[in-house]
């Protein structure tokens, strides 16, 4: 890790001014930033510690029925907030399926939105990566890429966005609040992350100095509380990034779908909201056939970026599964293994007795 100036601003305004200087990064939970600094992917000259900035760690319920989440609210605190989890259960489930309890205790809402890809070629400074260095190439393209993008990729970059949290946020149309040199602005989460672009290594819509101060969920997001799931496929039962994931939410009018929200994770450089699939569900009965059709619509443009065609199959199936489970109803209690396809496998307690034949 290179030496850097450690700066602790006293206010939001001071932070933004400090971070507008090139070579600056914000430090909040540190769970992603410090890792990237240790492996040399990020070598900041100035670390602006915003972890103690006042007022950014609150969950505020808004008069319009929405909610505002401060950027410094820790992942675990949000997931275990009773009212939040009851209102947005798929978000809570997504949060609890991510990382580990320790990391969720440290990682913040704002940092989660901006976490960098897990692409091994991005992390490996010995190789070419347009995301690290525009124009250097993409070693993932013909490399070990079985877990890479199947949507929205170009030869520029086939990396995926690793967040679980962002998937239901995208589905629910969250709005990201940003403080910048020019003042405050709102960005819909769908516009926050950039898809690969040959002219820019920009990963997000943020400008130098821009600080995510919070996140809002619009009032209509609460309508899906009764039928909301997040599903995540992993290569081990826990503490692993998604192979693919899906958030599915339904607003039911009797036996008819009044509104649907769908998004996929780990398939593209951004959390992938499936608008056409949502539209295809409106007014339909919640049948397997309707879910299959929606999944097909969501993946019309999907194509393998390498050795990963199976992810398209999986994405389709996990969408159908998430819709099916969402229709069955949000579980009364958080599953023991959040977002797992093995939700109710309550394996018994281990026995302590020694076992001699």
């Amino acid at each position, binding site marked *: 890790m290179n030496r850097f*100036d450690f700066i602790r601003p006293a206010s939001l305004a001071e932070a933004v001014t400090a971070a507008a200087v090139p070579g600056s990064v914000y430090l909040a939970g540190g769970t992603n930033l410090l890792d990237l600094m240790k492996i040399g992917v990020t070598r900041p000259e100035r670390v602006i510690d915003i972890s103690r900035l006042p007022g950014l760690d609150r969950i505020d319920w808004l008069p319009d029925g929405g909610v505002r989440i401060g950027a410094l609210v820790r992942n*675990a605190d949000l997931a275990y907030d009773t009212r939040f989890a009851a209102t947005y259960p798929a978000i809570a489930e997504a949060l609890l399926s991510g990382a580990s309890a*320790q990391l969720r*205790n*440290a990682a913040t809402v704002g940092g989660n939105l901006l976490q960098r890809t897990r692409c091994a070629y991005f992390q490996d400074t010995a190789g070419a990566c347009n995301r690290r260095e525009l124009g250097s190439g993409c070693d993932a393209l013909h490399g070990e890429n079985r877990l890479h993008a199947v949507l929205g990729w170009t030869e520029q970059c086939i990396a995926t966005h690793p967040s679980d949290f962002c998937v239901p946020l995208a589905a629910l149309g969250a709005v990201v609040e940003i403080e910048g040199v020019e003042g405050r602005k709102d960005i819909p989460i769908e516009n926050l992350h950039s898809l690969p672009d040959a002219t820019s290594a920009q990963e997000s819509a943020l400008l130098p100095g821009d600080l995510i101060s919070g996140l809002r969920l619009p009032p209509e997001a609460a309508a899906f509380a009764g039928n909301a799931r997040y599903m995540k496929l992993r290569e081990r039962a826990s*503490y692993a990034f998604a192979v693919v994931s899906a958030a599915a939410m339904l607003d039911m009018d009797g036996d008819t779908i009044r509104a649907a929200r769908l998004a996929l994770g780990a398939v593209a450089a951004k959390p992938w909201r499936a608008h056409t699939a949502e539209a295809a569900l409106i007014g339909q009965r919640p049948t397997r056939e309707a879910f299959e059709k929606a999944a097909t619509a969501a993946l019309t443009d999907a194509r393998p970026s390498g050795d990963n065609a199976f992810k398209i199959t999986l994405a389709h199936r996990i969408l159908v599964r998430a819709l099916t489970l969402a229709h069955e109803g*949000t579980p009364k209690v958080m599953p023991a293994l959040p977002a797992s396809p093995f939700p109710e496998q*309550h394996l018994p307690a*281990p026995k302590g007795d020694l076992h001699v034949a």
Partner: protein
Amino acid sequence: MPFSISLTVNGQPNSIALDDPRVTLLDLLRERLHLTGTKKGCDRGQCGACTVLLDGRRINACLTLAASLDGSTVTTIEGLADGAELHAVQAAFIACDGLQCGYCTPGQIMSAVGLLSEGHAGDDPERVRELMSGNICRCGAYQGITQAVLEAGHVLSQKTGVPDTGVQENGRNAA
């Protein structure tokens, strides 16, 4: 640019001069305060061996900059036992053989202490397994670890008289 932070470690307030902003909480504990019970297994938040309690919550010390901790309180494995009397989690790890080589053990134990105070696992072994999954044990002592956490949970809930059901309500039926 040297600066100092105040940090309470295992109940002891310290003023710590930092000559280098790069020092992580883990390296501060191990190399500068010589509290080596907290272990480095990966230094990247991928194994849990460095788990400590920061202001009462379990975190990975390797991904925490010491400089950012001014005014915080840290509890490490060295600060868990009350004199010669082991913490219930420590005793249960021995009784259930929840350890082999012992290297991940301080992190496992601090994680278990954090888990029990969070109160989301109750007495459900499946929840314990999930919520202890941030601590890798290469020897494969998981069965004893799960059992130890369950047993320590019983002991602690009997001590405090608080029933430890801990399962989070979720969704519409809970509202």
